[in-house]
């Protein structure tokens, strides 16, 4: 009936720049993440041995720290992060440029996706930080995760503080007075 707003026409005419993505699911919901943002994919079981528990950080979606090579990663539970029903994650996406690993249910496949559409302005919650935008893949619109959106600076600081406190406690126990 009426012509569309001009800015949305511009969105529809966006150039088709493609990028490689990993499609995965959490609690039945599909997501995409740029392949370039993922350093490694491991089974959750394979990391269990090297995981260190983090207590009382105030960041309930992170319970463990894992070490890979000379780096450490906070393991974010994807269900808790996105406010979804608890599922049984089997895989861990270890991110490349941040000390974050994500627990996910499964990897669907790799795909070349068109650069994501910006999230409509109607969305005004935390999702603006969670997602880079939305992508149309195989007749499905799915959010493209923002690798920097899994932990805020504040959450990272809280986790690092909790880690430091726990290490100091362990150190104090080891170097305490030896009783005969």
């Amino acid at each position, binding site marked *: *009936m*009426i012509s*569309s707003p001009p800015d949305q026409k511009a969105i529809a005419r966006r150039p088709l720049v493609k990028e490689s993505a990993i499609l995965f699911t959490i609690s039945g919901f599909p997501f995409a993440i740029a392949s370039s943002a993922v350093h490694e994919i491991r089974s959750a079981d394979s990391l269990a041995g090297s995981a260190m528990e983090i207590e009382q950080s105030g960041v309930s979606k992170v319970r463990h720290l894992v070490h890979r090579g000379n780096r450490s990663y906070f393991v974010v539970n994807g269900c808790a992060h996105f*406010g979804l029903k608890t599922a049984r994650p089997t895989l861990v996406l270890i991110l490349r440029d941040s000390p974050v690993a994500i627990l996910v249910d499964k990897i669907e496949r790799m795909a070349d996706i068109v650069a994501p559409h910006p999230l*409509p*302005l*109607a969305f005004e919650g935390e*999702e603006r930080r969670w997602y880079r935008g939305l992508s149309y893949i195989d007749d499905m619109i799915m959010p493209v995760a923002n690798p920097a959106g899994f932990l805020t600076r504040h959450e990272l600081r809280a986790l690092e503080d909790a880690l430091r406190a726990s290490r100091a406690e362990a150190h104090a126990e080891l170097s305490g007075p030896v009783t005969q």
Partner: protein
Amino acid sequence: MTTSAAAIENNSFVLLQLGKRRFGLPAAIVTELAPPVKLHVFPHETPMVVGVIMRRGRIIPVYDVTPVLAGKKLPDRRFYLVASRKIDGQDELGAIPVDGECELVNAELFPSPEDSPKYVAGVLSIGEETIEVLDFEKLVSTRVAAPGTAGALSQSEAGPIA
């Protein structure tokens, strides 16, 4: 002046059906009546927004206004009335689920009763029926205690996403 207020001036309205009631929207902000296309849902925290639909290459957010207007859940088989709104100075399309065909009418807009909700911009008198005309901006900004968060979404309610 909101988009809706400006659009009301030409006295042309689209009448939509929601449950047993009809409502009006200024025709100037209405873009199309979309068929029952797939509703795509994903985790988010924005109240009122239930998901997105794809129309003509555009991703359009869908506002679930049915709890506000009809006090019930989304109809199973729904059409979408797509209208324009301004957010942060930018035009953006948004859709609301409706139960069926819409009708275009020309009628004079009368002031709404004082106790009307804020999202009612006025009323139309058509035959013996009094129809509330909606202020789209105010309607989709209405806060309701409804399950709008991702955690509350079930796959069955989410539609054919998987």
